[in-house]
């Protein structure tokens, strides 16, 4: 894996300027300064305009394109896909196509109906889920884009040309400002809210505090933006997950430096499998490491050939290189230890037992296979998907509040006061085998000593009170 190749700068467009400046593109602007003038005015202020890249350079299409349409004598497409942007921004395109972002639709495609269709209704998919995960854009027979699938700029959008994702998920069109994309706000539309409160976590962290108070020293408009060299005031989301730092090159593969999966029922240290076709795949590190040249099924169901495999240690090393632009190595390593310990705690104390209990209840027919028709399914889902994710993200990005009150505190509360009682009720006479048998080990020992008082509740319990039985 080329994690530590120089140069550390953003990729330059390698094409000759003769490749753009479409002759028909100049004519668009005069009319579009009158119709939808906002977007034309933004383009006028853009680096694209200064470089001579016009409307048609991005919006041109050939008649055979699925979403091609005639507009004022030109054949154009409304959607500018990553493949279109990739005509000039080749490296970014290749990195982005292989990223976990590009698979955001494919990864949840089979799961979404349980929430979007069953629990609520189809209408919410277009306006909710798909706006972050991306839609499978449908071009209707009359050439129009199906409003059930568009407008959409979700990061894993499946485009009519087959490419995945949407550059405008992060890069606001039509200004395409570097500074805007480097701001934490570029990520906020999706990385916020109960299940992935990364905006809130960043803001509550020391990094976010420094960013807010020293934003004028972030050098956000700089041509190159290498952490430790072009700015030192604070990191943003981009800095750690994508940005150049020291010798570490920038990347549009946003998950590259992530050693853990943090949004899964049980976190896994993950291998990054790089495929011959440029695609990538996350595999749990516990799985056998695939051999170079082996065939492997990708997230979208197609096959790919293994080119190389990045270990979680290597990925962690890349992330740590960013940290070490501002922190010492012992500091960085110790921080990572604190983070890993929270993930291991979540896994061992809550996630693994809860998953085993649920599996047992399903296997014994104590729960129906249909998700969300029984209250415990909400409890379990939120345990890992909401508060569990908050705790793990909070620890990863140094927000004590999210690690604890918004995260692990709720995991603990809901595990003991909701999940276990619901599980025991569902298990009925088999409660001991299906539920309590999973609660062995040190993690749950504290429950066996109900007489151990503590003043935390603010109540003085007189000594000599009859011991109560453990609430089993």
């Amino acid at each position, binding site marked *: 894996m080329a994690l530590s190749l120089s140069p550390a700068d953003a990729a330059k467009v390698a094409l000759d300027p003769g490749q753009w400046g479409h002759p028909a593109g100049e004519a668009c602007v*005069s009319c579009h300064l*009158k119709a939808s003038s906002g977007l034309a005015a933004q383009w006028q202020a853009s680096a694209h305009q200064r470089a001579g890249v016009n409307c048609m350079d991005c919006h041109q299409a050939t*008649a055979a394109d699925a979403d091609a*349409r005639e507009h004022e004598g030109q054949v154009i497409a409304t959607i500018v896909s990553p493949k279109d942007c990739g005509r000039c921004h080749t490296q970014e395109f290749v990195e982005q196509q292989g990223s976990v972002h590009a698979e955001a639709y494919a990864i949840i495609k089979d799961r979404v109906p349980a929430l979007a269709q069953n629990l609520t209704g189809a209408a919410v998919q277009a306006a909710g889920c798909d706006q972050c995960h991306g839609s499978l854009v449908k071009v209707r*027979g*009359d*050439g129009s884009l199906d409003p059930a699938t568009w407008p959409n700029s979700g990061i894993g959008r499946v485009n009519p040309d087959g490419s995945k994702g949407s550059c405008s998920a992060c890069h606001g069109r039509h200004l395409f400002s570097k500074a805007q994309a480097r701001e934490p706000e570029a990520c906020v539309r999706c990385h916020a809210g109960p299940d992935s409160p990364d905006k809130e976590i960043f803001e509550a962290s020391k990094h976010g505090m420094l960013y807010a108070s020293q934003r004028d020293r972030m050098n956000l408009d700089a041509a190159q933006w290498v952490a430790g060299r072009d700015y030192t005031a604070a990191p943003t989301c981009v800095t750690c997950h994508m940005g150049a730092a020291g010798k570490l090159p920038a990347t549009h593969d946003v998950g590259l430096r992530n050693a853990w999966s943090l949004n899964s029922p049980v976190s896994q240290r993950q291998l990054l499998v790089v495929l011959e076709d440029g695609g990538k795949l996350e595999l749990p590190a516990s799985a056998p490491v695939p051999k170079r040249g082996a065939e492997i099924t990708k997230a979208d169901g197609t096959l790919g050939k293994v080119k190389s495999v990045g270990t979680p240690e290597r990925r962690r090393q890349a992330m740590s290189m960013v940290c070490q632009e501002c922190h010492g190595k012992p500091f960085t390593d110790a921080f990572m230890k604190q983070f890993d310990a929270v993930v291991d705690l979540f896994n061992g104390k809550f996630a693994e037992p809860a998953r085993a209990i649920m599996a047992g209840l399903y296997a014994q027919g104590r729960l129906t296979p249909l998700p969300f028709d029984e209250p415990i399914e909400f409890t379990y889902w939120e345990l890992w998907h909401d508060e569990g994710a908050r705790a793990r993200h909070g620890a990863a990005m140094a927000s004590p509040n999210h690690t604890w009150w918004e995260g692990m505190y709720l995991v603990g509360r809901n595990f003991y006061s909701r999940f276990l009682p619901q599980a025991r009720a569902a298990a009925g006479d088999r409660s001991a085998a299906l539920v309590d048998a999973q609660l062995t080990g040190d993690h749950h020992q504290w429950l066996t000593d109900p007489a151990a008082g503590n003043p935390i509740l603010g109540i003085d319990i007189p000594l000599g009170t009859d011991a109560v039985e453990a609430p089993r």
Partner: protein
Amino acid sequence: MSRLGVPLFITRHVLIALVVGGIGGLTFAGFLLEFDRFTSRNAFCTACHSMTYAETAYQRSSHYNSASGVRATCGDCHVSPGMLAATWDHLIGGKDLLKQWFGPDYDDPVVNALLLPEAAFAARAWFRDRDSATCKRCHTMEAIQGKRADTAAIHREETAGKTCIDCHYNLVHRPVPDQSTFKRDAWNRMIEEEFGLAPGMAGQMMADD
């Protein structure tokens, strides 16, 4: 010279011929005007069942429902202004009747929808060939204000070399892509979905017709 000062070649027979011819001519012109008027009415056009599909979309358009109460009829848009041109259009339009009788089953809603794009392309070409003459019956370029801020400026400054239909298509009837980007397969799939037909049925129906 006769007593009335009429030239000598105006004999009685010539005079009768002039009067009869004049009255005949006027009657014929009147007939044509009435004929054009009669055959331009919505009721006449939709006397064929096949045309009622076009009517359904039209009745939802602003050319049917306008706030001011102005309502364009079929003929207002699809028959040229002027008696002779209108008569000619009706003469040529006779081929539609022949197709209705001897051609594909346009009365079948599926066949009608499948063949709509070709009809739309022909209608657009017809408008273009006449420099959108029928639009201009009602719409005067200089008077277009619009409701949005720059509609007037766009019409004033951005329309050189263009005729109304170049921009304003898919205005009244069911939307059909421009011929340059039209995809028969995609259209057929859409119609099949709409009528609950098995994939491939549309192509089969078109081949049968």
